[in-house]
């Protein structure tokens, strides 16, 4: 049995799932000042009548990191950058950085060394900081400078924690890695405290299973491993929902999914049964980071979106002014329209009818008014989906083969989850001309997603056979190549052994490994081939343990 908990903006949901079924579900109000309180409330309810020893894993999707960022509960970070030549990012990072000399070029070669005296000076200036982030340009191709700076920090000050930019992500983009490293250090202590408390509280209820946390990329990691990479646990709510959709509906081929909640609809596009990723990483506040996440669009349309006429024109959302009138709210909402249209059945139907009477244009019946409201809401979602498809089709490509092929997504099915999906998803599907599926259990999709999410981990290997070395950024590894005759297939083999090593260290089983990216270039100098540059990234595919069938 798997236990999943999703901390939402209003409610904390918990489910126990097993053998493709939701065995137990519970709901408790989210306690914003102390998230753990609400989590334990939901946990105690969901465990009623369940043997805690039979739980195989607990997975948490929590807003602990997101809230810390949004509410500015961030620890002061000593941010040290080795930018080398290029764009000046000093004013583009969340904290005034210390700039250090020393440069690693695009091939991972040192072109000038870092200086210990500069780090010592930085330590004097940053005497009030206990957590540090160090990021160097091209450090993913040679982490030695970042590591040297970390050593000097330990020598000259007593850091509680140091995040290295090369360890937070294996992909190019110094600016994003610097931002990621900063946020990772800034939430490290706060997250650690939460993680220890959560671990202890779960154990205190007789659950002996490991506790995992959900990441923005839809994978989980053990709380212990998450301690050093807390930034990856940002924005897990939408990721949980997407995983829930995978668990409940398993859309195949190309699809679009909607999580239609109280105030917003989260939209995701799917290809080959998997949600599309935001290629470069998530944005935290105003800062782009290297945190891997699903590519989602959130629009202000949901069940509680207020409905009004402006100059005769019907508008829906984006504001919420309270619950549906059927539930005692002050203004007509989308949910009231759904109740009148027969797509939902809760609250006081008389008040819902009253809401549609307020909404109706002169001479319009309440049924017609309800249909009009739902059409406007569905149209807003439909338009947003169209924009996402356009953006995807317009995404730059770097190969001729990809430039001449039309890559425009063509979803064949729409999956809707969330409280307001039953009323709206079929209308959006009709506009798109695709099949619609609203799986049973859709109301607790997020918690199901957290429960069923598999642990994931990735490694990025880059080999430079002309120089005879390779790096695995996530491991801080730079090592000699076993042979100069080294192929892409060899690189994948080597990467997969490092993936196994990294997984073992994090306590993650190695299943369903996939190659997410590779490239191979011949190096030609003076009209002859002198070597190859090979890069590949392997990951344990984000996914779910089992497909759930109904609540």
């Amino acid at each position: 049995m798997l236990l999943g908990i999703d901390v939402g903006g209003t409610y904390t949901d918990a489910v126990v799932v097993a053998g493709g079924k939701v065995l137990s579900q519970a709901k408790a109000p989210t306690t914003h000042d102390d998230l753990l309180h609400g989590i334990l409330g939901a946990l105690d309810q969901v465990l009623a009548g369940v043997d805690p020893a039979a739980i195989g894993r607990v997975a948490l999707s929590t807003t602990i990191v997101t809230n810390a960022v949004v509410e500015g509960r961030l620890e002061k970070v000593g941010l040290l950058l080795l930018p080398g030549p290029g764009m000046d990012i000093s004013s583009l990072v969340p904290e005034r950085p210390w700039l250090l000399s020393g440069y690693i070029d695009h091939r991972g070669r040192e072109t000038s060394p870092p200086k210990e005296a500069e780090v010592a000076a930085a330590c004097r200036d940053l005497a009030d900081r206990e957590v540090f982030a160090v990021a160097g340009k091209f450090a993913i191709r040679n982490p030695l400078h970042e590591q040297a700076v970390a050593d000097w920090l330990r020598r000259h000050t007593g850091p509680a924690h140091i995040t290295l930019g090369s360890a937070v992500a294996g992909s190019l983009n110094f600016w994003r890695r610097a931002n990621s490293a900063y946020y990772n250090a800034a939430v490290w202590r706060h997250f650690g405290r939460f993680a220890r408390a959560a671990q202890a509280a779960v154990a205190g209820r007789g659950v002996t299973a490991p506790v995992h946390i959900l990441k923005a990329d839809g994978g989980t990691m053990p709380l212990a491993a998450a301690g050093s990479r807390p930034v990856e646990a940002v924005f897990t709510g939408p990721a949980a929902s997407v995983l829930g959709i995978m668990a409940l509906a398993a859309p195949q081929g190309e699809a679009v999914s909607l999580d239609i909640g109280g105030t917003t609809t989260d939209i995701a596009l799917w290809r080959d049964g998997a949600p599309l990723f935001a290629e470069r990483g998530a944005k935290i506040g105003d800062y782009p980071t290297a945190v891997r996440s699903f590519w989602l669009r959130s629009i202000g349309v949901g069940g509680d979106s207020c409905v009004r006429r402006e100059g005769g024109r019907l508008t829906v959302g984006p504001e919420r002014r309270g619950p549906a009138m059927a539930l005692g709210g002050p203004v007509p909402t989308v949910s009231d329209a759904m109740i009148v249209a027969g797509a939902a059945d809760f609250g006081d139907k008389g008040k819902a009818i009253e809401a549609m009477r307020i909404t109706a244009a002169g001479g319009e019946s309440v049924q017609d008014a309800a249909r009009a409201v739902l059409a406007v809401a569905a149209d807003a979602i439909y338009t947003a989906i169209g924009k996402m498809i356009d953006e995807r089709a317009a995404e730059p490509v770097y190969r001729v083969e990809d430039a001449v092929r039309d890559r425009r997504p063509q979803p064949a099915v729409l999956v809707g989850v969330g409280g307001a999906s039953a009323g709206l998803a079929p209308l959006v599907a009709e506009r798109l001309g695709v099949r619609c599926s609203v799986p049973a259990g859709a109301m607790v999709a997020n918690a199901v997603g957290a429960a069923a999410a598999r642990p994931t981990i990735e490694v990025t290997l880059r080999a430079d056979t002309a120089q005879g070395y390779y790096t695995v950024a996530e491991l801080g590894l730079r090592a000699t190549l076993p042979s100069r005759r080294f192929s892409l297939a060899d690189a994948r083999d080597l990467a997969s052994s490092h993936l196994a090593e990294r997984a073992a260290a994090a306590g993650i089983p190695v299943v369903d490994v996939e190659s997410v990216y590779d490239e191979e270039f011949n190096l030609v100098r003076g009209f002859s081939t002198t070597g190859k540059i090979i890069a590949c990234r392997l990951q344990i595919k984000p996914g779910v343990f089992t497909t759930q069938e109904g609540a």
Partner: protein
Amino acid sequence: MAVKPFGLVFFPAFDWALTPTHPEREERLLYTRDQIVEEGLLDIPGIREYKPRLATLRDADRVHIGVPDIASHITDAHLVSAGGAITAAEAVIKGEVARAFALVRPPGHHAMRVVHGTRGFCTINIEAVMAEHLRRHHGVRRVAIVDTDVHHGDGTQDIFYHDPDTLFISFHQDGRTLYPGSGFTDEAGSPRAYGTTLNLPLPPGTTDEGLHYVLDNLIIPVLEDFRPDIVINSAGQDNHYSDPLANMAITAQGYASLAAKLKADIAVLEGGYSIEDALPYVNTGIILAMAGLDYSRVVEPDIAAAPHGLTDGARAYLRELVARQSALWRDREQLGTVAAAKAGDFWTRRRGIYYDDSGISEQQVEKLRICPRCHGYLTVASEAEGHHCGYQSAFAAVVPREPCPACRQGAKDAVLAAKRQGKYQHYIIQDKENDLLERV
């Protein structure tokens, strides 16, 4: 941050090479990709990246006369590269961005009007295809092209040699010392377009100082005087001190400040083959400069290796060059009238053109009607011979954009007359008024 963003079309064609070890190979923009992605340039709010569209054969036919046709010489890569230039230009024209850079390959500035094959790594002229697209679809008339590649942009010069509405300025390493061996000061345009081709051969070893002297004292004033609707920069990067195919001494800072001063609406990458030591830095510098951002920290790690200091001889030569070409620009109308009078009814030029990549020698005779009412129709008789292609020949006539009735008829008559004689394999009319390429 710029008020209006800067547009970037980046297309490194990672799966395309002329031949596996050719300078135009997959690896060429790999380190440039590494640098601009690593810098985070594609995430800056003031920079918007565009996916290149595909140019059409019609876009190419508007500029080129392919023998037997353009399609038999090009690959999809050429259509993406030319399409990338068009994408950049349209982003500017539509006002989505203030300026744009098509950082694309394969390059184009050695591709001439008539195309029998590939020369100087170029098959179709991507700037010319872009410029004529703007003229046809976006009402642009006066175009200025500044070619900052180390090699003379002989293809672009050829295409616009008779067009007084297109100013073509090229600085380059002196043609006596470098491919393609042209671009001397006496190549100044045919009589009706005299002075709108301006060549600035620079001595090998020219530094930032020398280049900026020419830029400040000649190129910028001439551009201001011409008052173009649009300024295009053929942004080759092989004047860099580390380029393996040339002998100049320009730095990334020199290129970036050039871009900042030139303020081109659209830049299009041309050559540049120091793929590790120059391109990552020069491209970063140009992008930042065009986007109006600080580029002062973009310095090559091996900057100590850059030669510096101009010789007194070079300094004197550059002063004399600027003086001579300034005079040519000032007196261009009068000089054009003299040249027209000397030519009579038709201006004629015979040339040999070599396609180094395809191993083809072409012999070409151009005849341009010196017409008082329009740009005049042009005929081109072309015979080419090569290892692989054997013999191929064509007789073509070009109807100018706004032809007088006599020139429209004259072009047609000339092709029909040549066809009756039957000396050539292909007979073609390129009609710029109606945007057609007809086989007769």
